[in-house]
């Protein structure tokens, strides 16, 4: 009886072509491997997303909350046709991107989380995601939205995405933008970077295990500093919070 119920609750099993791993050289000279992960590696990723729930800056908290749910749903077979790609530097987790196929032609891009800033890692990971949808899954367009203004600038404006405002995106029902195959081709030499195959030692290191990020985004010293400073220009609340925090730390 339990087996039949689980069969009803699970999504239909539709095999997707795998993402061929690739590697890029970052501005720092480090080499970063981008590869697809299967369900069994999700529990290794979740502990590194969880701390971002408390980073109240650049919408990390919203994105982390949603990504955590998406990864968990993928792991527990509660999402149709989702995939997850990760980027690793020396085994350390640097970025997580995910999305799903709505149907054979249309893709729904979910999120891009960068766990190290300043090296355009998010740009590389996002591009890999688009390459997966258009080149490998052979889809016709990808629906995209952004939570953070940084994301908006980079993706809507830089790639000249088309408006699809009549379609509600799965991330909160907001109006969608689309990267069509045509736009992708125009931006191919900028978007499709990275080399294949990944040198064996590099790939082995990446596959051996997902290591904790060495310099992840951390919450600001004052937990509500970011939000407070938006609304409380007298800063009196800020001073009060800081005092409370100090007392709590000293206790």
């Amino acid at each position, binding site marked *: 009886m339990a087996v039949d119920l689980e069969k009803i609750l699970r999504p239909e099993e539709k095999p997707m072509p795998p993402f061929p791993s690739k590697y890029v050289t970052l501005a720092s000279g480090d080499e970063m491997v981008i590869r697809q992960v299967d369900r069994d590696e999700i529990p290794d990723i979740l502990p590194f997303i969880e701390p971002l729930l408390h980073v109240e800056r650049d919408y990390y908290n919203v994105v982390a909350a949603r990504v955590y749910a998406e990864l968990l749903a993928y792991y527990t077979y509660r999402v149709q046709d989702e995939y997850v790609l990760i980027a690793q530097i020396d085994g350390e987790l640097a970025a997580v991107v995910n999305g799903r196929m709505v149907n054979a032609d249309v893709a729904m891009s979910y999120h891009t989380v960068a766990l190290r800033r300043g090296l355009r890692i998010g740009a590389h990971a996002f591009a890999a995601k688009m390459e997966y949808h258009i080149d490998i899954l052979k889809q016709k367009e990808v629906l995209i939205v952004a939570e953070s203004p940084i994301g908006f600038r980079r993706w809507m*404006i*830089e*790639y000249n995405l088309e408006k699809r405002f009549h379609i509600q995106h799965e991330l909160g029902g907001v109006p969608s933008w689309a990267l069509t195959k045509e736009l992708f081709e125009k931006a191919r030499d900028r978007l499709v970077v990275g080399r294949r195959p990944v040198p064996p030692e590099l790939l082995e290191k990446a596959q051996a295990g997902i290591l904790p990020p060495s310099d992840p985004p951390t919450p600001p010293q004052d937990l509500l500093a970011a939000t407070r400073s938006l609304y409380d220009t007298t800063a009196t609340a800020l001073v009060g919070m800081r005092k409370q925090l100090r007392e709590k730390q000293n206790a």
Partner: protein
Amino acid sequence: MEKNIYAYKCKKCGQLHYPYRTICKKCGQNEHNEFDIVPMAKTGKLLTFTHLFTLPADYETVKLSLGVVELDDGMKITGQLKIEKPKIGMKVKGKVETVRSDEYDKRLGMVFYEA
């Protein structure tokens, strides 16, 4: 009616200025605003250019080409370029068009095309 960009000619010594100034930079003898307006030439030579990708919020395009042009009457002007592949020294000709618009204002300026 054809639109022009104007230079400001000192009424005392004839020095041309673009953009305008309060006191003539050559003789310094004019009364405040004692300038005649003189339309500037519309053809010239491209001195330098750039393609800007980090645009201010009110632009909806991805890229903006800007350049400095030395006009045939000797005056220099900054303007937008609608040229595929600009090169330093190339001949250009300009037209006055809308170069920036927010919700209510349209700003007119010089846009240069390949001559």
